[in-house]
């Protein structure tokens, strides 16, 4: 009977072998899945066990903080600035997931990033309660407030403002209206949090949508800056004479492109004057007859079209930035469709742009043709405020050379001083820009745009894009006014006026 007993022993061995194998599967291979499962209450408990770091705007203005509570989840996340920074800072929900900087910098805020390894060791050795790191954003609180208030008080209450530092690419303000209060989403009452989120999600005004980064709109006449850049790069001068007139009929069609109401555009008009008064006919004809579809698309791409800018070099694109597009400008046979080129030149047809892209164009012109990589995270500070990361500005492209940029600056300054963008003027600063009034489907009021920059003594101060959704024909003027206020706030903050 010993042989079968040994075999029974082998059976027991095999059974235990199966157990070992299966435990390896569960505890090693699937461990990460299980550890981070939505159904695992330990995830939340451990996340709320230690104090999460703060998110701050420049100057230390608190945008997100965690305060101790008495309940099971030890710390409650709150957003003192409420709706003002909602789209950027995002929120960190108990079981809603997270968004914005809260998501992008989750590991660092939690104290789990690779760069905080020494911090964790120190905390362990000294017996100190570990806590998360702090994230310092590039945002200027005054500019953000001015932009947010201006949008909230605008005629349509819908739109976006993006302000950049042209020399570094730092995002100084970015706001989208309507906005939302992120505080209810961080509630420890998970049902209330879900209800609050659902309510926002169903709101027909789409408050959760970040219009500054995540939506494209027809840019209208602001796209003439791209036309001008293409023309100047091809060797034209601002003083070169274009053929304007009240109407232009592109080849292969009978549809005519008119000028906007009130635009005075003589038959013979210089490039600079055409931009100043925003003459559609001159730019459409210029694009069709001189620039051509390829060159137009290339120039737009050089400025950043067709590729979503990587904010903070975040390849996951947590901030949800989308790419701007020019459209192919081809007909069904793959040939260049001239009527489309004519319309694209004035920012219609299939051309679509994000407000962020608009600000990047203005910033590039102001910065002498060098486009800086946009970024939002200025510094990462450990819990004792030792920096472990400091942003280094980087040039991401150079779409135009210095002389073209300086010609464009002159032309855009002319727009604000003598043309359609007068409302953006700031005393003591040189302001340049371009307005846009974009049709978006028959019957809808036009979008109002302004992209522009402010300079002091030949040095760029700020670049701004303002977008007012379906604000009608007066929208571009209103947008120029808002841009002026935001840039003035930035200049004032820097003691430049």
């Amino acid at each position: 009977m010993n042989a079968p007993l040994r075999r029974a022993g082998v059976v027991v061995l095999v059974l235990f072998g199966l157990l070992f194998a299966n435990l390896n599967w569960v505890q090693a291979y699937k461990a990460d899945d299980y550890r981070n499962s939505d159904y695992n209450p330990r995830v939340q408990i451990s996340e709320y066990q230690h104090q999460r770091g703060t998110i701050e705007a420049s100057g230390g203005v608190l945008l997100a903080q965690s305060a101790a509570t008495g309940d099971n989840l030890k710390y409650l996340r709150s957003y003192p600035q409420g709706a003002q920074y909602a789209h950027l800072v995002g929120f960190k929900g108990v079981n809603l997931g997270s968004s914005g900087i809260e998501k992008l910098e989750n590991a660092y805020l939690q104290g789990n990033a690779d760069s905080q390894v020494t911090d964790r060791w120190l905390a362990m050795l000294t017996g100190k309660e570990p806590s998360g790191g702090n994230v310092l954003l590039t945002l200027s609180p005054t500019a953000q407030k001015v932009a947010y208030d201006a949008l909230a008080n605008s005629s349509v209450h819908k739109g976006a403002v993006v302000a950049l530092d042209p020399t570094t690419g730092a995002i100084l303000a970015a706001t989208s209206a309507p906005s939302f209060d992120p505080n209810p989403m961080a509630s420890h009452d998970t049902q209330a949090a879900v209800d609050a989120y659902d309510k926002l999600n169903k709101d027909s005004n789409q408050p959760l949508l970040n219009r500054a980064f995540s939506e494209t709109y027809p840019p209208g006449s602001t796209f003439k800056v791209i036309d001008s850049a293409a023309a100047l790069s091809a060797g034209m001068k601002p003083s070169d004479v274009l053929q304007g007139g009240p109407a232009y009929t592109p080849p292969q069609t009978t549809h005519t492109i008119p000028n906007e109401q009130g635009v005075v555009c003589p038959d013979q008009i210089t490039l600079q004057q055409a931009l100043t008064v925003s003459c559609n006919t001159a730019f459409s004809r210029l694009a069709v007859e001189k620039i051509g579809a390829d060159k137009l698309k290339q120039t737009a791409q050089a400025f950043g079209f067709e590729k979503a800018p990587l904010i903070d070099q975040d390849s996951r694109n947590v901030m949800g930035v989308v790419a701007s597009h020019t459209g192919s400008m081809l007909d069904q046979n793959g040939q260049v469709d001239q009527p489309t080129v004519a319309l694209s030149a004035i920012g219609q047809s299939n051309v679509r742009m994000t407000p962020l892209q608009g600000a990047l164009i203005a910033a590039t012109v102001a910065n002498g043709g060098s486009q800086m990589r946009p970024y939002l995270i200025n510094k990462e500070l450990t819990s004792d405020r030792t920096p472990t990361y400091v942003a280094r500005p980087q040039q991401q492209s150079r779409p135009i050379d210095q002389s073209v940029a300086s010609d464009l600056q002159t032309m855009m300054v002319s727009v604000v001083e003598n043309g359609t963008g007068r409302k953006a003027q700031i005393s003591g600063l040189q302001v340049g820009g371009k307005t846009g009034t974009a049709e978006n489907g028959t019957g809808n009021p036009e979008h109002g745009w302004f992209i522009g920059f402010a300079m002091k003594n030949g040095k760029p101060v700020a670049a701004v894009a303002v977008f007012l959704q379906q604000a009608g024909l007066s929208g571009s003027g209103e947008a120029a006014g808002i841009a002026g206020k935001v840039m003035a706030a930035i200049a004032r903050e820097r003691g430049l006026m």
Partner: protein
Amino acid sequence: MVLVGGYAAASEAALVGRVSLGFLGPLITLTAIFFAAHLLIRWLAPHADPVLLPAVAVVNGFGVMFLHRLDVADLKEHGTVKIPLFSGQGGRQLMWTLLAVICAVAVLAVVRDHRSLSRYAYTLGLAGIALMMIPAILPARFSSINGAKLWIRFGSFFAIQPGEFAKILLLVYFSYYLVRKREVLSLASKRILGIDFPRGRDLGPVLAVWLLSLMVLIFEKDLGTSLMYFGMFVVTLYVATERVSWLIIGLLLFLGGAFLAYFLGGTVGGPFANFYERADIWLHPFADPTNKGYQLVQSLLGLGTGGLFGSGPGAGRPDKVPLVQSDFIFAGMGEEIGLFGLTALLAVYLFIAMRGLRAAIGVRDSFGKLFAGGLSFTLGLQVFVIVGGVSKLIPLTGQTTPFMSAGGSSLVANWVLIALLVRISDAARRPADGSGAGRSGGPAAGGGPVKLQDLPTEMLRAGSASGHVGDKS
């Protein structure tokens, strides 16, 4: 004990932030219990396998300390950490350990020769069947806890699981019956496809046990227990007859029965519905993670969170796993001691089962061989069934983890099991020249031994040609 003490201190440190002397109470008590048990075993069974007791003591100690750690965590929520010695789950378990060890020693003292058990085989077997059937017959009010009718409940807080004892009693009967019938069962056979199949009428007892285990499955709603009984029987049958065909028949019958129950549960429902549901949860635990699959999902998440090294004693959240003190104790520990800790713990179980089988191989009489083999295999199988269940290897069943889960019946029954293994290992390792008759000096067994020894040894000689005497492997 040092290991167990270290574990207890570490978990208390992690939980409370400081080490109090509170953990020393249970620890000293445990040490005293096991030391006393060791001395008594040395006295009652001087040749017994010396590693069985320490191995069991480690597992038992970890079980008590884990339950104690749950108490500490529980009390911490309410602000205090002072636990009197025998209170709380850990204290109760400690009390049960004491009782179980006393029972084990008593069994060792009473059963001076394991062969004496075979004299009462029919009585014990009948008692086993009765114990097994009681919960099935009792109204659910007295026998059902968490859907499985495995219990006899006395009042609201005290319940025993008669099945735990029944398995030992039944095994006595199986071994006795098979030793007597093994020749018939092994010799008379038809050869089909190179495998010896038994005659139809010899299938009777196997079918009877199969039906019994199916009845357990259906009326007591417990797959684990039925798998245990059946596995136990099939293996003893195989060991007795050395016929692979029994294994094949047994496996087919069980799989067929289980599949039939699953199929019927899906279509007819009724008594099979519980089984169907369990199998369904096993196949798709995440389909309903907050309700039906909750236990298994939380168990898996706990194990997964532990990962390779575990979160450390006291640093996990085993309270998030339901029934962590009984059925899911393995998952609860897995979170804190990780894959490596669990592997070590499983290795100890494996070690116990293997030493038991070693004793079976070493012992000279057929009854002892069968009995010890059956006991060891059952122990291993039970660990497999419950650990496989909580780690989603097989459908989850309501088995206790031997020596660890909170619960007196299981602890006492398994300690008795170990006592019997110790007794048999004592017989196995006793020098061959020291005659058995000299050992059985008890007045009760005074007249018996001679007669007793006749039966198995005669069977031994007749049964197999290969000599066992002096087999040291």
